[in-house]
């Protein structure tokens, strides 16, 4: 069972609607960070919205101004039920993990983890820790799209850091033979990453989100061309919204019997749901995940709030996410 869909639809089918849930997310410059706060305020027991500060940049003032507005809005809607702890973009693992502990204080047993505006170095570790947490009975990850066609035409982010593993997903040895890269609108940092991994005769496979959503197919292909099209045999199309589908594809091809290889390194540059699928696969199979964390995000990254999607990973202590990461023969999928 892979329960995912529009959040409203999903919640109708989950028992947590009756008891309410805790929210762990972020307040950010993008309006969509408030998708669940505005849409489902009545169900929130308690909300922990991390306010993540980027290093100073030419965008700092605008970022702060917009984030202030969204924080104010969250406080207006949720009143005493919201806390907004500050964090730094490059926070240590312990500081990231403590966000989860704060969200779970007060006996929260059902958690909605909103990865919409969480940087990957936060969201990957938080998903992992939430799934490992013995006190959490239900875990739903959510992602809010922006208003259609609202991504800025400029670079979404700037100043990628050097290639490094995401917190909680570092490699033990340096000999992974396949690099699996999910691409998105922004190839920033990806050429640098591919450069670091070129000194091995390793495969490179691209996960291509489909449909890309108009008017972005051209932009997506620009990202691919920026890093070099590896040929159709090295491209896998994944549903842009189906996190479970991505995890299933990865598990079918790169784990268990008939797998091409058990030794892969993942690079999540694609849409958040695809990243979530990669995260689930990495948790289950212990794969390293590498990334070039940008230090600056565009204050007008997106505008508006679109559909909020929910992915129920754990329900009443039943780990639903595991079925998507089972090792199945690749032929079963074809």
């Amino acid at each position, binding site marked *: 069972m892979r329960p995912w869909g529009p959040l409203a639809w999903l919640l109708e089918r989950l028992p947590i609607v009756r008891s309410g849930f805790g929210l762990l997310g972020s307040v950010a410059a993008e309006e969509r960070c408030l998708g669940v706060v505005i849409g489902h305020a009545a169900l929130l027991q308690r909300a922990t919205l991390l306010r993540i500060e980027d290093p100073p940049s030419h965008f700092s003032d605008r970022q702060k101004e917009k984030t202030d507005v969204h924080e104010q809005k969250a406080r207006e809607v949720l009143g005493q039920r919201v806390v907004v702890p500050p964090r730094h973009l490059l926070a240590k693992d312990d500081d990231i993990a403590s966000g989860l502990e704060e969200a779970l204080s007060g006996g929260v047993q059902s958690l909605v983890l909103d990865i919409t505006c969480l940087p990957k170095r936060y969201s990957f570790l938080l998903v992992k820790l939430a799934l490992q947490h013995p006190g959490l009975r239900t875990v739903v990850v959510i992602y809010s799209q922006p208003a259609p066609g609202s991504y800025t035409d400029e670079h979404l982010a700037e100043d990628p850091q050097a290639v490094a*593993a995401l917190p909680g997903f570092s490699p033990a040895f*340096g000999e992974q033979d396949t690099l699996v890269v999910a691409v998105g609108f922004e190839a920033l940092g990806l050429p640098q990453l591919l450069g670091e991994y070129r000194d091995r005769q390793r495969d490179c496979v691209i996960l291509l989100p489909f449909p890309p959503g108009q008017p972005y197919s051209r932009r997506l292909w620009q990202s691919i061309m920026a890093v070099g099209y590896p040929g159709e045999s090295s491209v896998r199309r994944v549903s842009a919204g189906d996190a479970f589908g991505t995890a299933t594809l990865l598990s079918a091809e790169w784990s268990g019997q008939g797998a091409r290889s058990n030794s892969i390194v993942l690079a999540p540059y694609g849409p958040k749901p695809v990243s979530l699928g990669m995260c689930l696969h990495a948790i289950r199979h212990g794969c390293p995940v590498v990334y070039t964390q940008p230090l600056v995000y565009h204050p007008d990254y997106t505008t508006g709030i679109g559909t909020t999607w929910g992915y129920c990973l754990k329900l009443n202590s039943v780990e639903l996410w595991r079925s998507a990461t089972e090792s199945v023969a690749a032929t079963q999928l074809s």
Partner: protein
Amino acid sequence: MMNESRERPMNPFQTLYVTETLTDPDAYWNLFSPKIISGETGRLFLAGNVVLIGSNGTGKTMLLRLFSCEVQEAFLRHHKQLPLPGEKAVFGVGVNLIHSGFGSLGRRSLVGGKIEDEMRWPILVADLLNHHLCFELMRVLEFLGNGSLLATALGAHVTEAALDEFAQWLGRQDCWFGRMRSADSFTGLREQIKSRILLYREFFNWNRATLPTEVLESCTEIGVPLAVCREGLGRHGIVGAEQSLMVTIDQYETLLHTDYEQRKSDPNALGRAFCRVVNSLLARRDSSVSFKVGVRPYAWGRELRALGTDARVECGRDYQVVNLDEILRRKENSKSWVFPAFVEDVARRRIERFTPRLSVEDLNMKSMLRELTPEVAIERYCGEKPDRLMPAHEDWPRAWQVGLRSLYKKDKLSAKFAELWAMQTLLRGEDLPKSFPKRNAPWSGEWWKKERQDALLMRIASECRQRRLYGGWDDIVTLSAYNVLVFLSLCREIWDIHDRAGGTLKWRSIEPEVQSQGIRIVSESWYAKQSEFPGGSRRQDFVRRLGIGIRRALLEDRGLSYPGHNGFSVAMDEYENSSAEIRDFLEDAADFGALMALPHTTKERDGRPRRKFYLFPVLCPTLEIPAVRTKEPYYATIEEVASWTSETRPTISFRRKALVRRAGKRGRETQMPLFPSQRRKGKR
């Protein structure tokens, strides 16, 4: 006539990185130029510690990979010569710090307190590195024991029994603090080492809540287990003592990045402490184990202390430096410049491999690139209007008007130099000679012309509303600076365009228009690439503003009195006393191929040592400025540079200061007088 399809070769420059061909020794042998392993670079493969410094694209990783047993084995299996000094095999093991997860350490609390954590983390990193290197050594030994030709080349005797004995002996050594005593076989010992690495990984990756106390209390001393391993290999007759164990540690800068963004100038930053772990390996000075550390220029020298002491590792005593940037960069004496011969060999090898049907002599890249002389360039800029650059100065003495026009009809380039010289004279407030010089013209001096030629051509192209044309081997080498990646990118684009333009039957001659188009594509992509690296957007913006500033300065300097102002220079004392932020910004810019940083021998009377900076040559076509460096860059103060590099991102301008400085001697004239001779009279 040859069949066209058979004659058309694939682009020999398609694969930019030789390292991509490491598993194909034939390809590697054909693409790798051993000319890079000569002189200083050869030191890398001799016993002794070496820090190999090289910026992106200079071939650092390619050289370090030659230590790999797999690469050497492939050469031997294909009966190829090892491209190493004396063709001697080396006993190498290595670790790539990024790929082995060293970039993500120090992020979890170990025991709770920040101070204690920061003391313990480097010890843990040292222990982890020790285990990684020992594990890798055991992997190499196993490889050598599987019928390897490399084992024979090294004089190694690797048998299962010998390895087991070695492992039993090794497990009993004190360096492990008794932890490995139970290892009764080579496999058993290797598994114990692997378990330790995996245990660390479980903790780093939050798969376990804490590190067991016994781990924290049994950390090995940096470098000791490896040294004991080397001793044991000799004792058990596996690898003779004459073979120095060569340990490569690539991507040293990864350690510095640990918390560099947050704690740049903090001497106790964790990343610096991790660097000290590797520095301690260099400080060991153990002749049986040599360390070869690969590092980007910006990351070496920021932390030179060894672990647990304030003593610094010293160049010459603890290690030698092989700086690829310096080796490949053009020096004052161009005869000693190795880069042109190196890339010529690289190009020849590639063409030879990918165009086997054609004569190699016919396909020499150097001779294929048709040269564009300045005279021809001017004709092309003029196009169908040959008189469009005719000097027209109605206020100048008639003899000069006539003389210039007459000279222009015969030799456009000389006429433009003459016009420039006259302009310079007038701007100095002096009169032009009464008659137009016909012999021994003052503008015909070789150096005077050489220093201004590139800037003049830039201005002419601008005047004709055309983009600058390039042509010839020298242009390609100049634009590549010392970076073989840029050189190969230029060759790849030029080859592609030539091919698409139907140049199949004219391989011997690639026209300047084709070369210029390829050059512009690579230049634009190198500019765009700036934003792909850490700190890139600010650096890219700086490059853009500096390019605009330089272009404006050169266009507004009508007499081209300061042709060297396509770069700037700062006094070393000011530079070294400036904030770390400015130095880091400029050094990073040099490392990521945005700037070139060079020592500057000043002509100023004070003789203060200076450091000069130029835009990286391949960026110049996009920014429409000359790539050739001529003497006397703009003398900037550190305050000016600080403002240029600041986050406020101001317009960069240095024309005014330069003119005022010179004009000060002559009454601060920044405008050319309308009637120079009258004005001079008036002054008197």
